């Protein structure tokens, strides 16, 4: 008997510690909808002191500073809520309500999402402003250089042409860098999928390969794509993001193989509950001491910096983020001077 009482006391203690230190507003309401207990954050969110809330009926709480009606209106006796949005005094709140067993009242959680929403909005705005502001002057440079090169502004000497072509490719590089930065911001903006749909990975690979047709021809790289199974299970994919991930892997494979000698093989197969993508090249490989940093932001291998190829150090970082947002995994095998194989796996619904 004594033991039981003790354990009830301990449980009560635990609940009090939890409530008193909880960052969200918490209200514990009894079966008659009278407020029994609140967390300290509730005082701040409702702009009302504890002693003026505890003991009151849920529908009769008020504050001299703000109007609590929008919040009170959400509640109906015994009705559970899950993250219902309420605007209260310029704050955006998510209100949830859960009934206790045997009609012993309920727990109300008031979660402040204003800051998160604000940051999200600012980031989205930044992306769109950066895209527009940075790309506009670069478009002007691109267009005018191209027109001069095309002879639209009169004849261009061979020497001038060479210089202008180099300027043009530097500018293209800048445009590419901005795209990479925007992609990173966009990926980081939400680790959620923007537009998930059921589709075959194969379809994305075939489409992405089309973007590289020209460069494959110029570099004379031998690219092959094989699917082991006739029909792999479809995956839930964000098409735009997955295209970007595969684009980055293919781009690296092509960039870091020697012209005329490059061999790239892409495979798809099913293993347990995953579809596995594999891209194998016979390129320059990754130095062993740099394995750990390969997926970090702005990282580029020592050996590829020496090759003077363009790169922002964001491709694999972005790719990893995308694969992980599809609940997948990414890894690689590499031997410096021999080649690299990147793999990723995406689970399918059973």
């Amino acid at each position, binding site marked *: 008997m004594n033991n039981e009482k003790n354990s009830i006391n301990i449980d009560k203690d635990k609940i009090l510690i939890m409530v008193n230190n909880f960052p969200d507003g918490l209200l514990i309401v009894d079966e008659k909808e009278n407020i029994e207990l609140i967390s300290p954050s509730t005082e701040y969110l409702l702009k009302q002191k504890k002693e003026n809330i505890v003991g009151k009926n849920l529908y009769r709480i008020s504050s001299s500073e703000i109007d609590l009606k929008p919040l009170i209106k959400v509640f109906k006796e015994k009705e559970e809520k899950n993250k219902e949005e309420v605007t209260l005094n310029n704050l955006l709140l998510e209100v949830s309500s859960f009934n206790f067993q045997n009609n012993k009242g309920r727990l109300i959680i008031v979660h402040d999402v204003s800051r998160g929403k604000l940051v999200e909005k600012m980031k989205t705005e930044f992306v769109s402003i950066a*895209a527009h502001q940075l790309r506009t002057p670069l*478009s002007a440079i*691109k267009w005018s250089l*191209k027109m001069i090169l095309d002879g639209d502004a009169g004849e261009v000497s061979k020497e001038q042409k060479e210089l202008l072509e180099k300027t043009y490719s530097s500018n293209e590089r800048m445009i590419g860098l901005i795209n990479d930065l925007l992609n990173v911001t966009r990926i980081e903006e939400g680790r959620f999928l923007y537009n998930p749909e059921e589709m075959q990975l194969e379809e994305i690979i075939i489409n992405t390969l089309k973007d590289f047709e020209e460069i494959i021809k110029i570099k004379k790289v031998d690219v092959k794509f094989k699917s082991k199974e006739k029909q792999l299970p479809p995956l839930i994919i964000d098409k735009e993001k997955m295209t970007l991930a595969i684009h980055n892997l293919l781009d690296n494979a092509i960039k870091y193989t020697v012209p005329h000698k490059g061999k790239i093989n892409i495979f798809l197969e099913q293993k347990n509950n995953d579809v596995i993508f594999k891209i194998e090249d016979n390129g320059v490989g990754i130095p062993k001491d740099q394995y750990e940093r390969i997926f970090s932001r702005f990282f580029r291998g020592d050996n590829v910096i020496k090759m003077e190829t363009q790169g922002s150090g964001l491709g694999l970082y972005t790719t990893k983020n995308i694969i992980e947002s599809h609940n997948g995994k990414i890894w690689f095998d590499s031997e410096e001077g021999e080649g690299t194989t990147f793999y990723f796996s995406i689970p399918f619904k059973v």
Partner: protein
Amino acid sequence: MKKVLIIEDDKFLRELLGKKISSLGYSAVLAIDGEDGLEKMKTEKPDIILLDLILPGMNGFEVLEQAKKNPTINETPIIILSNLGQSEDIEKGLRLGAKDFLVKAHFTPQEIVNKIQMFLN
């Protein structure tokens, strides 16, 4: 001669593109903002329209909406030519009736004219 309306607020871009388009056997009509563009759609009756999105005053999406509502011009193909390019923008543009969405920084003037040619044929 086929007529191309360019709605672009950046003077330099507008004139460059106008020059290229004229040199390739089209007639280029220039509009400096959305209001001007809508007006010229009605008076100039272009065969195709290049539309920027970020414009002073009325933005490109609004121009697109207005144009599609007007029975005298809603058949004219509109190509969005903007430096926005997030999937939300692209989807919105196509949903509102644009034929294509080109990111300025990704296309050369010649490539833009090739697109125009494609839609006019």
